[in-house]
């Protein structure tokens, strides 16, 4: 018997289970952050009744969602209607597999991690489109179509902005990108334009304000989620926040040194201590960017759908190409 293979399978199952288990508390933490930070920005106190300083408000929301009735519209396409939340949620959870939390704490350290990530992330658009179609509701349909247009468009600048990183680091593996950054400094310095494009495009990719066209509560009520209730809605909701976490995690992995400490000492600890140290830094940085996204949501109005598409094709895509071009030339000329 190939013990290596069995061990590998066992390790994979354990890691994926852990990842799945991690998604729920992650969503709880981010929802709590969102409620609290937006409240503070608006001169409110925010939730403060459940638990110390209102810490368990989002948890209670989660249980409430579980307990609510799960309704299906009369004329909805029942099977796809049921499937859609699952697809969206799995897309988010699957892309979490390649997130490098710390040295040795990656569920699956693929050599083509970056490609895998973008491939899986693109799946969520299918879920949203299906949800919009199956709901038998005009708002849902419009929302689903918007999501398809928006996410497909923004995947292009998003991916192109990362190609610069790939060219520089010469790898498609997240851990190797981070290793490269340990050697050469954060990619933020090498790819300032790439960071900007990636950040804007990632916000649009996960439907965050100011690009939350898909939900757009003042126009489309709740977009594809209009007809959903109970835990099905909960899945969409969780997936949204998990996606925010993933995007922030990928952003810091690619451009902000991932699990690396912001100053070089101690550059990298060995063994279990190094893992713990990496996890601490990873979460600190990730949640910092989550907080920035929440801050943006608390401040900005939403852009219009045509302006959004225009920005993807007329601004971000050319910029990303220019960025790639410059990077490529620099790599060739300076032989990096």
């Amino acid at each position: 018997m190939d013990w290596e293979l069995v061990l590998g399978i066992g390790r994979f199952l354990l890691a994926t289970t852990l990842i799945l288990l991690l998604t729920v508390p992650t969503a709880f933490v981010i929802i709590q952050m969102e409620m609290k930070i937006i409240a503070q920005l608006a001169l409110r106190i925010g939730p403060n009744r459940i638990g110390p300083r209102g810490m368990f408000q989002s948890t209670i929301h989660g249980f409430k969602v579980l307990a609510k009735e799960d309704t299906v519209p009369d004329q909805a396409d029942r099977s796809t209607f049921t499937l859609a939340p699952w697809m969206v949620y799995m897309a988010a959870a699957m892309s979490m597999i390649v997130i490098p939390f710390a040295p040795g704490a990656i569920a699956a350290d693929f050599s083509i991690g970056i490609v895998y990530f973008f491939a899986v992330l693109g799946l969520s658009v299918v879920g949203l489109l299906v949800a919009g179609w199956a709901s038998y509701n005009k708002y849902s349909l419009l929302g689903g179509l918007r999501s398809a247009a928006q996410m497909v468009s923004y995947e292009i600048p998003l991916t192109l902005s990362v190609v610069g990183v790939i060219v520089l680091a010469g790898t498609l593996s997240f851990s190797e990108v981070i290793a490269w950054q340990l050697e050469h400094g954060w990619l933020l310095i090498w790819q300032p334009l790439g960071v900007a494009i990636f950040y804007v495009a990632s916000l649009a990719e996960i439907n965050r304000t100011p690009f939350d066209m898909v939900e757009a509560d003042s126009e489309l009520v709740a977009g594809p989620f209009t007809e959903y209730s109970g835990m099905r809605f909960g899945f969409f909701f969780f997936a949204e926040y998990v996606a925010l976490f993933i995007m922030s995690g990928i952003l810091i992995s690619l451009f902000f040194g991932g699990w690396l400490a912001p100053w070089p000492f101690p550059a990298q600890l060995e063994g279990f201590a190094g893992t713990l140290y990496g996890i601490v830094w990873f979460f600190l940085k990730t949640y910092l960017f989550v907080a920035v996204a929440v801050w943006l949501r608390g401040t900005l109005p939403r852009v219009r759908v045509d302006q959004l598409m225009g920005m993807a094709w007329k601004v971000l895509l050319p910029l990303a190409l220019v960025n790639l071009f410059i990077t490529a030339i620099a790599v060739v000329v300076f032989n990096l």
Partner: protein
Amino acid sequence: MAFPGAGIAKGMAQTFRNFFAPKVTRQYPEERPQMPERWRGRLDLIYDPFGEHKCEVCFQCAQVCPVEAIDMSGFDTQGNRIRYGMPEIYDERRDPNAYRRAGQPARPMRNPARWDESVDTPWVDETVDAFGGRPEALVAIFRAVEERYGYLPERALRRISDRMTIHWAQVFGAAGLGGFRLLPVAGHVVTVCDCAACRFAGGPSLLDAIRDELGIEVGEETADGGITLEVGSDVGAGASSPAIRIDTLVYGPLDPEKARHLVSERRAAAARVAEGTPA
């Protein structure tokens, strides 16, 4: 727009500042809002001069209220319990009042003798209104009434309570502590100062002299009704102690002889006025 993104940055800076600014949320059950003095959300029934609610429990208000905000219950003139809405919301009206209105006095009136006091109620209303019906003005209103009648007639107090919708007990209590006269006095009022300054500068000897001169004790009036003798610590004699006050004028410093002279003169003047022979 100077620089693309400058406007967004301005807004971001604003929210960032507000993140650390003091918050405006009121934590309701713990922090009660402070209601304005004129708050109309709380209903208060007006009292009649007998100290009972003026409400007749006729339900007219409850029936016409467009949003059905009024409930009440009570007793009718036959003593039957009647109800319109939840009983615990409104003070139940007591049956004596209903009987009295039905022409059957169910219990004696309070202080029937005082009921005859002639008080110019429209004038009292005007005085109350002149001060805007504010609770702060209660003492000022009392002073105006006392200036006119020489004391605070109970009927005027009832009227003030009615007009200002302040409970009778509250009005009476405030009047009782302010050093106001609640009973009518006859003739001139001679008040011998009893403050610390006068007392230690010979106030008691003045009192003895005046008592002797008038032949009455403190709190009494002379047989001819010309003068009432009182002792008070609110004369405010200050540096002219010992002093006495006749009506509103303060005389001092006095020695017993002067005081005797002053009082007898005033008494004689009062007698002349009573006889109709001007001085």
